[in-house]
């Protein structure tokens, strides 16, 4: 209490009007600042990578506006209690929508990931990116940590159902990300080290079996990743062009809007999944390291905020949001630089594309709400 009063008095003296706004909106200053910086970098890079397409930038800005609105309203109005109550509802809605998508996709005989909700198209799997970890955290909230074997089985089921449905869409990349977000909750909740060590060979075995169940193009992606030069104009084209873009950028890059790989369209999906290569080509190693550093700050700050969580739900949800964010960063930058297979994962908050931006910033909104709207202990 003393400390709190001290810090508040100090804050009053030193914080600017912007600082007061942050506090009024219950936003975390450092996290908001770095996120804003990343989003601004994203706008600049999308302008260059899209071939100076103003229409795309306008659309990008509209997405950002929606995403920021989501972040701010969640941070301002959501409380840990509401969020905890809402978690199973969100999970149920998400599963229901996935069923709808799978069924219509089956009827349409093709990949179906989108639901058209009038003003925007919307991927139900995006809801699950937040709903799955929140559901797992909700489940563990009432139970003592570390989880028992039964708890693990229940969480495993909560993760497996939506994951399997997304694999069927088929969208292997997103399915893996969602499975990862659920697994993160398991790990943070104190999953025994012995189980982790035992499950590694089991996962390898499962991967081997899974190989026979995934789609041909997904298998091709993995094979291509292992040896991209085999088929330079086919499936390996993405990886090769991406590495050329990054490698030719050098330390300082070719300059903003000067990247020939991106500007002359040698680089595929230059403003979406492969935008990190555009940063590498035009801003060089320094530009990419700056972006990675900003991401590292975001992850660190988010983990710190999660640790401040008052209850199990807050901590596990916050930790899962922070580490899922890391997984997105790692999978995308690893794919673009050629150390991971090509899976359709955008670069968080920089890539052009709507739903991913909204989910991510909504996630950080939840993280901030869990942190700043907590009840005072003892009251």
């Amino acid at each position, binding site marked *: 209490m003393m400390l709190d009063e001290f810090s508040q008095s100090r804050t009053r003296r030193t914080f600017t009007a912007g600082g007061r706004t942050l506090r009024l909106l219950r936003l975390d200053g450092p996290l908001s600042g770095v996120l804003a910086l990343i989003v601004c970098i994203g706008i600049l890079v999308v302008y*260059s990578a899209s*071939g*100076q397409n103003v229409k795309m930038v306008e659309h990008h800005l509209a997405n950002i506006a929606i995403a920021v609105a989501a972040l701010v309203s969640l941070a301002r109005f959501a409380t840990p209690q509401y969020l905890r109550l809402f978690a199973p509802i969100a999970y149920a809605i998400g599963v229901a929508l996935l069923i709808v998508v799978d069924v219509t996709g089956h009827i349409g005989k093709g990949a179906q990931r989108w639901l058209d909700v009038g003003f925007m198209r919307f991927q139900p799997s995006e809801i699950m990116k937040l709903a799955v970890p929140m559901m797992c955290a909700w489940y563990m909230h009432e*139970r*003592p*940590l*570390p989880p*028992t074997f039964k708890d693990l089985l229940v969480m495993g089921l909560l993760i497996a159902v939506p994951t399997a449905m997304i694999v069927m869409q088929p969208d292997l990349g997103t399915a893996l990300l969602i499975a990862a977000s659920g697994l*993160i909750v398991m*790990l*943070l*909740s*104190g999953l025994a080290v012995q189980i982790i060590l035992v499950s590694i060979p089991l996962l390898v075995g499962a991967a081997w079996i899974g190989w026979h169940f995934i789609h041909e193009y997904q298998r091709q992606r993995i094979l291509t990743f292992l040896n991209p030069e085999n088929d330079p104009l086919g499936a390996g084209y993405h990886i090769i*062009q991406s*590495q*050329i*873009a*990054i*490698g*030719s*950028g*050098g*330390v300082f890059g070719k300059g903003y*809007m*000067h*990247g*020939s*790989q*991106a*500007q*002359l*369209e*040698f680089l595929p999906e230059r403003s979406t999944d492969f935008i990190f290569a555009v940063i*590498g080509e035009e801003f*060089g*190693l320094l530009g*990419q*390291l700056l972006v*990675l550093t900003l*991401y*590292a700050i975001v*992850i*660190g700050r988010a*983990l710190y905020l*999660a*640790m401040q*969580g008052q209850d*199990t739900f807050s*901590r*596990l949800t916050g*930790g899962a949001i922070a*580490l899922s964010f*890391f997984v997105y*960063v*790692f999978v995308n*930058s*690893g794919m673009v*630089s*050629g*150390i991971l297979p090509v899976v359709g994962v955008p670069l968080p908050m920089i890539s052009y594309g709507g739903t991913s931006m909204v989910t991510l910033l909504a996630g950080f909104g939840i993280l901030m709400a869990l942190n700043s709207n907590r009840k005072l202990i003892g009251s």
Partner: protein
Amino acid sequence: MPRRVRIKDHFAEQRIFTIRSIVAGCLVACLLIAVASRLFYLQVTRHAYYAELSQGNRVRIDPIPPSRGLILDRNGVVLAENLPAFQLELVREQVGTPAQIDASLARLVAIGLIDAEELGSIKRTILSHHVYESVPIKLQLNDEEMALFAIHRYEFTGIDIRTRLSRHYPFGPVAVHALGYVAAISEQDLKHIDAAEYAGTTLIGKLGVEGAYESSLHGKPGYRQVLVNAAGRPVERQGAFTPKLDTRPPVAGADLILSIDMRVQRAAEEALSGLRGAAIAIDPHNGDILALASTPGFDPNGFARGLSNKQYDALANDIDKPLINRALRGAYPPGSTVKPFYALAALKYNVMTPDKTIFCPGHFSLPGSRHLYRDWKPRGHGTIAMRHAIAQSCDVYFYTVAEKLGIDHMHEFMSAFGFGEVTGIDIPGEKPGLMPSVEWKRRTYKRPGEQVWFPGDTISIGIGQGYMLATPLQLAHAVASIAARGENFKPRLVAAVRAAGSETVTPRPVEPEPPITGSSPEQWSVIVEGMEEAAGPGGTAARAAAGAPYKMAGKTGSAQVFTIGQNEKYNEKEVSERMLDHALFISFAPADDPKLAVAVFVENGKHGASTAAPIARKMFDAYLLPNQPPSPVETP
């Protein structure tokens, strides 16, 4: 282990979470460092490699073809030049879908601009180019075709008339066998040319000067670096910026100045028109060829604009063989034109003196043989000496000379004049003819009975029949050596070269060959006098030479196409036109100071005097009478 009672312990749970988070944070740091290391590897360690790949991706090198050197005659008249040609070109992506392309082509056929037969090859050509490239579908449109397209232009998108440089021969078929022609580069050509030197070039020289001097005429291509996008399409800018790109201009080919004099050339071709034959005029003092004609010819402009298969077949299968260069490749019996040479040989080897006479009864037979060798004059020339024998072309005199010389001397002497081997003219395709010898017959025939040299073989060769064959060019070259009294030069068509963009004309050095030795000036005079007499009153070529303000020296000849039986008479009315004798004439003028030596050959022309000699006369007139204005040149 007994099952523990589990209750929620907030502080323990918080500790678990904190420890796990810190471990996760460390893992995050490690993996981010792994990504950063990978980036360092790509951008620093392998930067040079990827920078090169990136450059190769975006910059394409487009060749700029050089402009081909001009060909001029010795007075600067342009014989081959590069003119803008109008051609119909199609850009696939502007026309639209394959169905729309088909429809457009069908419409062009319907209005009569392209042949239905060529549709297949046009489509193949179109498909072998990029969608954004302009592909020629009809070359060198004439005025009517241009007008036709203009009327229907509104019906077509992506098809339009464009201008490109094309080879043009202002005189059409005139001198085509000296000039050669250019045609589309064939697969055969591609085997022996450097493809990089011909990038962007579609035509290559074939035969004649165009073929022989291809490397001088072609020039060096330049290049232009072009920025391309991933689809290979040239683009102006890369994003918001225009990068600096390198351009190297091409170096035009060298201009060639020929020894040809268009006045003489045109005189020769006009005189030969309608006939199958060849005429060559040589400057006896340096080997310059002032005219090289072979008829019928063909229009080389057709090859430059591309012949259809039908057109090419028509040329190749023409019974008059217009594609054959008769001047270089026609090997015929030289007939009586060899007589002055054997007369000189007889003097050199001392088997005759100029004034020694023989009696000509109209036929000749070898001792101990009943085989009769006839004279062209059935009743004979009576008593006759050397000069007169040349002028009257007495066969019996030269049968006697041949018998006395023997084939070995004849072969040795004629070889010095270049019979039996190529002259070495600077254009390709020349045939060596045949100067037979004992050794040649033994080598050539398989059956022992045929390998033997018979005395009768020698007799026929004495009047230029039998095994002996010579090309019109060899005859011209040899008569030039008589005119120059033993001086001998390699014949040539290209006299000088002018480098691209330069005013300096570099003459090519004259190439002397070993002179013909062993004959005294008096001996040379005897045969020249004999040839003057032939072109003088009462000589065989008297009528052709009549009225000339200069003095001609010459020798007529006719060569049998088929052999007449021993007791038959040759009746020119009864044999078909293509079985008639070939007509020949060799000459030079002025006789006392020779400036031009000429050989004329007319296939089935019957008599050298009546058919071949008048052609030579017109060529001499064109060259030696400067007051006569050259006939007006119509430029097509």
